[in-house]
């Protein structure tokens, strides 16, 4: 059975009298240790899907099975525990706590985990050895995103979710970040899901899920993912 499974997942938002259907009976699966990329145009429902996988949002109907558990049936508290223990999240805008240093931002995540990695090691691993004690404002965008990734990884999560991790970054920095993510997935056998609207990135993934109009239109498996260095866009 797949590690992550979306089965007829529907997500509706009610905005006053208008009801918007963000996900319409979406079905897809992702296997453990895969680097999955979800691509699609804006408003296709990819972020909603990611949010549901990440336990930040709940499906209106359908089942979301993660590691054999139907998280769509989780109670709020179980969802928090799930986020806390199983999920690492990398935001488009890093969402670092401005008032905390790089290391502290990582610690903010690790302090609540059962089995975290050492924040400093993780930061060194992501190439921020010299920046441990810097505040986000003193870091470049790429460095900030690295801190964000370090924060996500340091939790030692089962799934790493990245919502447009390069969206706010320039090409080179973006590439470095993606490499970091790819390497992490490879080295730590972590299931990584990246959302992007940049289709040229798809070769780097083990699995590409294409979204359109609120549902997963297609799922492609990439037997030999291309290392990010070799991808140009």
């Amino acid at each position: 059975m797949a590690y992550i499974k979306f089965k007829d997942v529907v997500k509706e938002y009610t905005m006053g009298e208008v009801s918007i259907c963000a996900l319409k009976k979406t079905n897809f699966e992702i296997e453990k240790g895969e680097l999955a990329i979800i691509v699609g145009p804006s408003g296709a429902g990819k972020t909603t899907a990611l949010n549901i996988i990440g336990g930040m949002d709940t499906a209106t109907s359908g089942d979301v099975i993660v590691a054999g558990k139907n998280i769509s049936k989780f109670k709020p508290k179980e969802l928090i525990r799930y986020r806390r223990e199983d999920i690492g999240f990398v935001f488009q805008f890093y969402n670092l706590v401005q008032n905390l240093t790089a290391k502290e931002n990582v610690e903010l995540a690790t302090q609540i985990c059962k089995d975290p990695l050492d924040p400093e090691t993780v930061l060194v691993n992501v190439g921020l050895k010299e920046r441990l004690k810097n505040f986000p404002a003193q870091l470049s965008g790429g460095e900030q995103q690295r801190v964000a990734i370090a924060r996500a990884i340091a939790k030692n999560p089962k799934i790493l979710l990245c919502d447009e991790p390069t969206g706010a970054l320039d090409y080179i920095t973006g590439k470095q970040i993606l490499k970091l993510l790819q390497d992490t997935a490879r080295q730590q056998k972590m299931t990584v899901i990246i959302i992007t609207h940049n289709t040229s990135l798809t070769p780097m993934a083990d699995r590409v899920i294409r979204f359109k109009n609120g549902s997963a239109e297609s799922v492609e498996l990439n037997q030999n993912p291309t290392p990010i260095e070799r991808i140009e866009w």
Partner: protein
Amino acid sequence: MKALHKDSFLQIKHTFKRFCSILLMALLGVGFFAGIKATSPDMKQTLDTYFDDNNIYDIDIMSTLGFNQNDIETIKSVDEIDNVLFTYSTDIEVELKEKTVIAKAYAYMNQPINQFNLIDGKMPTEEKQCVIERNFAQREGIQVGDYITVKLEENSILKDNSFEIVGTIESPLYISTERGSTKLGDGMIDCYLYIAEQSFDSDVYTQCYITVDGAKELNTFSNEYQDLIEGKINLFENVADKREEERYQEIMDEANREIAENEQKLNEAKQEANEKISEAQKEIEEGESQIRSAEQTVYQNEKKAENEFKLAEEKILEAQNKLDEQANLWNSSKQTILIQISEGEEGINQLKEAIAKIGETINSIEEKYEGITDENLLEQKKQQIDEANKQKQKLEEEQARVQTQIEEAKKTITQTEEQIANGKNEIEKNKQELQQTKNSTYNQIAQAKSTIASNKNKIEEAKETLNEEKEKANKEIKDAETKLADAKKELEKIEKPTWYVLDRTANTGYSSYEQDTERISNIGKVFPIVFFIVATLISLTSMTRMVEEQRVQIGTLKALGYSKIQIAGKYILYSSVATILGAIVGMSIGFVLLPKTIFSMYEMLYTMPDIQTEFNWLYAITGLVIASFCIVGATIYACHRELKNVPATLMRPKAPKPGKRVFLEKIPLIWKHLNFTKKVTARNIFRYKNRFLMTTIGICGCTAMILAGFGLRNSISSIIPLQYEEIYQYQMMISLKDILEEEKILKKEEIASMDKVKDILAATMESGQIEKNEEKDIQILISQDSPKLQEFIKLRNIKTHENFTLDEENVIITEKIARLLNIKVGDIIKLTNNEGKKAEVKVGAITENYIYHYVYMSNNLYESLYSTRPEENILLIKTDNISSQEEETLAKKILEDDEKIAGISKNSDAMSIMDDTMKSLDSVVWILIISAGLLALVVLYNLSNVNISERTRELATIKVLGFYDKEVYDYVTKETIILTIIGIFVGLLGGYFLNLFILETCETDMIMFNKIVAPTSYIYAGVITGVFAFIINIMTYFQLKKIDMIESLKSVE
């Protein structure tokens, strides 16, 4: 522009909570400001109306000698006075059922000025009627229809001593509980009453009340009024100076004239007396000579009578003798006659025998011639018989002649004897007559004599009386002479009359009321500042946040070509609407609620009509302007900060405020030991300085106000046990009537021996004045037994509790009066006793005391100061530990002897009265707690809102990181809690000082507050603030729960 306006109102709808918080701040700020500011004017207005409605005097003039006709005319001739009332007033001792009280009695004379409210019954229009103040009547259970008896002093101006109470009243002259002092009894007036003027009898009026033209239209507390009255007072003071002089002259003239008159009268009286005496003497002399002549007359008459009687007696004797002679003569001639008679009778008998023999001869002739018919013989016979008959006839004739002779002799005897008897009778009669005459004459003489004797007595008596009269007259004259001499001496002593021209501030109730209103307006100067500062800070943070949130929109508008003002207009409109709405609601509530609530506390102290609240435009507008300045000003400032940027900058997300190391990190010792969350908290606290400041100020203000509220209560309520249980060790004070020394000692011993009485001390209590630069009323307590006094009244240093003793040179005064007059130990003060004598004395110590002012001194000192011995008039009693019921029984028992006991006052009663007053303070505490609580709630709520909205992204992120709700809550509120704690501690400190300030402004002259704040109050203040903070935190918890994690994905605005 229309679209912008619309946007502005839509904004209100969308950010309704924020709008509300600004509105609420405006409401609180303006409401509190307007309410507290208006309280003092409202209270003043209320009193002004009360005074105006009752035509209360503007100027009160008193003269030590009263006002005579000349005074009246002079006063009435002063220009621009509206009305004048000359009336009588006097202090009297009134005997109630159980005690004697001192009352101020005024004459009721239809009262064109100083009217009062009749609560019950009717006005005292007839002689022997009076009306009494309602509160006192209620307290003493006096009913309309009861009678009161007045102990009339010598030369009292009242002529009746029993009055019917026909009504109860409330007079604006007595709004406070203070009734003034007097020289009677214990020196404190207990109540006031109005007695019908008919019951007064005085040549002069004692009091003059004046209303001034145009004064009624002015508020009595306004400067215009004071200026007007001051001008008039100057005028009357001139009149006073003039009249004092003139009146003095009048009195002197009058006195001189009276003396002269008296002298003349005396002389006249002397003369008259002398005349009378001499007249009386003459009368006596005349009487005596009359008696003498009467005596002589009587004597002469007696003699004459005696002579006459002698003559008469002699005559009678003569007559008797003659008669006796005649009788003797007669007796002899009677014998002869009797013999002759008997001879005659013998002759008769013989004749009878002869006749008989002739008869027998005849018979024998007849017998011899019986039968003889011979004529011769017959002739013989006849001859013989004739012869015999002739003889017989002859004899018979003889017999008849003798018989006649006898008869005659007998007749002669009878006649003579009759004559003699008559003579005898005559003599007897004469004798008797003489005796009678004698008797009556002697009676008359005796009577005359006794009359003379009684007249003599009378004269003696008259003489005696005359002597007495003489003595009396002499004495009287001497008395009159000494009096006259005294009067002449007195004349030298006559002092110039003094006029006192007073305005309303001399009325205790009025002036203490004014002070109280000043106090409130003082409070009104401080508290609203707290509110406005907080309001400014709140709206600054709120509006800054709002403007920041809408940076992009602002940028866009700016880019579209709207001017700064147009753009800012939206926010200004937003905050203006909030401010104006809040202000209007706030002032509507504040103008009514605060004056009413505050006044309701003062109702305990003042007898007045309900407060009139009005919409005070001045404070309404001031409040609105200040609030607008604070809130709209803050808005403009916030807008300005953003608007100065160019549109491009505005449309870019605002660079997040960089994180900074805090100073704590430089102290590794501490920093290393902090766990991660604590480090974060510490950083956050120092990062958001605004919030740090606001929270601290808000919480600090809240805590301070609550603490001040409790502190106020502590400070005031703690003086009750301090005064009545610690300072006063006695439980009852008995005032004695003016009785003999020995009786007092007996009474003291009697009470001392009563059950439950532990100890007793006699002392002297007088009311007097203390003066050092300024004069104040004070109670003087004089005791001769200093160590024992210490057992009844603790005289001690307030701080060190070192005991003081009374010595022969120094007095001890109480703390508050020392502070009021700025008296230090060692200072010389002037002390006036209740007889008005002044003396200078050194202050030896200042003793702890909280209620009223006292000066303590020893008997010897008093004697050396005033050269009179203090008369003991009170007994202080310490009882065993007894229940209030037992105490009541004891008091009743003591009071039974109303001959000697004037009254009794129990400390327990005083305590319970004070306790009632304390209850009114609870409402102050509640006002403070509620407004402080509201303040805290608004501040915390607002801050927490700002905090959350500012950090939504961060919070959403940590939620995504998997923080449990509780952890998110901790993450945020840890700061708030720490800030709250800091705020509470600062607030507790600030509250201590705020409390001091309030006490300083609230303290009345008569009372010293014990400036303490009980430890429990610190706890209460902290806990209450904590509870408010906790309530807000709970709200925060739910707000945090509502934060959508999706927020974390949004781009930075």
